[in-house]
């Protein structure tokens, strides 16, 4: 099976400290993969390497079979959606302008943009009359919905989410988790989700990749990790989040 995104022996150091040990990983199309692990385990670094916000010290990041480099980075980024904690919305632009930023930049036809925006509002349950508001005028949950719409605007082949719900209160968070699950299913979206919450990973992802100290410790379904932990660390990590009912 050809994977859209593939990492071959990719490693990354910050200063002297190793953030990611040489790692091989491929993501299956149409599925949601969760990267999970304690802070500093290298899960965000891995995500940032995929979208070329970081360059690997060794190894290759392949996108659709081609190595990501300076020449094709711009084009590849436009085929990937990226959502971060707190949204990363531009405060000087309205919700609408944030979502349409790239389409307008690329000169897409107005009618097409309008139709896509309608579609996305419905999909992400975002009230259309709030489109003219600035990020400062939106709630945290609404900001994440706008951020998601912005990431989905160009119909990306892969959606990357870096702790997208990390800063939200529990009620908003669970509503958004439900909506995200539905959106992924409806769009058959290939998605990679970084989280430190086992419950969220289990709920949203088809496959979980558990990382520690820059290495992949175990890959599998939530049940696999629970029932057949690869080592002491895996069972400790899962037991630490014992409130989770899965």
């Amino acid at each position, binding site marked *: 099976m050809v994977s859209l995104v593939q990492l071959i022996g990719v490693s990354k150091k910050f200063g002297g400290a190793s953030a990611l040990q040489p790692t091989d990983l491929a993501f299956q199309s149409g599925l949601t993969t969760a990267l999970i692990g304690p802070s500093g385990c290298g899960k965000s670094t891995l995500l940032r390497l995929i979208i070329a*916000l970081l360059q690997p010290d060794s190894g290759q990041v392949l996108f659709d079979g081609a190595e990501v480099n300076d020449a094709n980075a711009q*084009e590849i980024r436009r085929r990937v959606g990226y959502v971060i904690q707190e949204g990363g919305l531009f405060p000087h632009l309205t919700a609408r302008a944030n979502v349409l930023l790239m389409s307008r930049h690329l000169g897409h036809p107005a009618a097409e943009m309008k139709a896509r925006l309608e579609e996305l509002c419905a999909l992400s349950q975002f009230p259309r009359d709030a489109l003219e508001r600035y990020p400062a005028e939106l709630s945290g949950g609404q900001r994440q919905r706008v951020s998601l719409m912005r990431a989905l605007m160009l119909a990306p082949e892969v959606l990357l989410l870096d702790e997208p719900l990390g800063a939200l209160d529990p009620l908003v968070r669970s509503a958004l988790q439900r909506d995200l699950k539905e959106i992924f299913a409806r769009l058959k979206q290939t998605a990679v989700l970084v989280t430190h919450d086992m419950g969220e990973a289990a709920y949203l992802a088809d496959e979980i990749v558990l990382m520690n100290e820059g290495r992949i410790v175990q890959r599998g379904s939530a049940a696999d990790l629970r029932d057949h932990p690869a080592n002491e660390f895996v069972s400790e990590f899962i037991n630490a989040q014992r409130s989770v009912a899965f």
Partner: protein
Amino acid sequence: MKIGLLLGLVATSALAADPIVVGSKKFTESYVLGGIAKTVLERAGFAVQERAGMGGTIILWQALSGGQIDVYPEYTGTIDEEILKTKEPLSHEEMRTALEKFGVGMSTDLGFNNTYALVMRRTEAAKLGIQTISDLRRHPELKVGLTHEFLDRQDGWRPLATTYGLTMPNVSGIDHALGYAALARGAIDLKDAYSTDAKIQENDLVVLRDDRHFFPEYKAVFLYRLTIDPRAITALNHFGRIDEAKMISLNAAAERTKDYAFAASLYFHPTASDSAPRRDLWPKMARWTARHLQLAGISLLLSVLIGLPLGIVASRGGALGQTILAIVAMIQTIPSLALLALLVPVPFLGISATTAIVALLLYGLLPIVRNTATGLQDISPALRDSAIALGLEPGARLRKIYLPLASRTILAGIKTSAVISIGTATLAALIGAGGLGEPILSGLNLNDHTTILEGAIPAALLALLVQGLFDLLDRFLIPRGLRLGS
């Protein structure tokens, strides 16, 4: 007939083509003589541009020999001592020969000598029958009050007394201005002065003739570039004479009315009334203000055009960024007067409005460069990552995201730069570029507070106005989304 008409047209247009630039030094008499030269040339059919009160001898001489001005009034003694720096006084013919090497000509002397002189009350002199310095020998009882400078100078009181055999026992040192008051009260009977000082007329004093030619000659002349139209040279040499008494009265009129152009016109129309010398205040102030805004506005625009790109480069840090910030900060530490003086010898600048604008734009750079760099550096990494991850090219990131996000800080820098520019532009008058510095300078020169305020108050109001204008501009230029949070 037709050919004659044609020649006439050619001649007229040639006259109108390049204005003759008349400069003057920064003291009353020089302003007045500059004004007289202007009228003389205008009456001869030339277009004239006046650069009044440009500075001291060195600046005027550099401007003349460098071709930024064509004519200015000078004194033979100064030509000897400061320009040609000769050991022995030269004759006028020797001076002309020496000046020719610089492409400069010297007019016939204008008719008066502005040198050191001894003065006394006219009534007292008449009573005692004193007309010359030699006559003083008969009156050793006179009380003498001299400026400290004149007392100490090599060519001052002591050699003078030796030359004339004066034996007054009662000689004291007194400040120049206070000396006139002491003379009027009768506390002293004799003091030193410049021979065309307006105070001589004001206090009804008389200048004693230097019958043994002790004092060096400071005959007034016009210096001009030899390349100007020969008819202009003829006009400057043959417009008439100005004697000491006339010059004293013109200087007195200038100091009384604070209007140099009016004082100069008195030479041509001695009967003109000076009862309403301030009639032109409002139009004059409007002209100064317009000029001031022009200087500050052009320099601000250039500061922005140069400062923004420099700030963008500086925001990226590294050796280049550090160097830019260091150089721009260093410029700011140069005193503005020194910066002007440094720029004057630069080719293509010289004594001109361009120099003033260059100086102002250099001063305006720091706030713009620093605020642009800081504003861009302060953008959160999350927003930078978002802009990159969306797939915007570097140029589009800057234009659509980074600059708007930094707009508040950048505008604050431009505002600071504008206010600095308005304030510093007053110094432009020092190199004859005009603006509200003009009344401030002549006011300082005349020790006249009203004239100083005519420049200082509008300048302060302008600075406030500009500040207010920029506050208003913030509302249009800073995106609404950025103003919500604060």
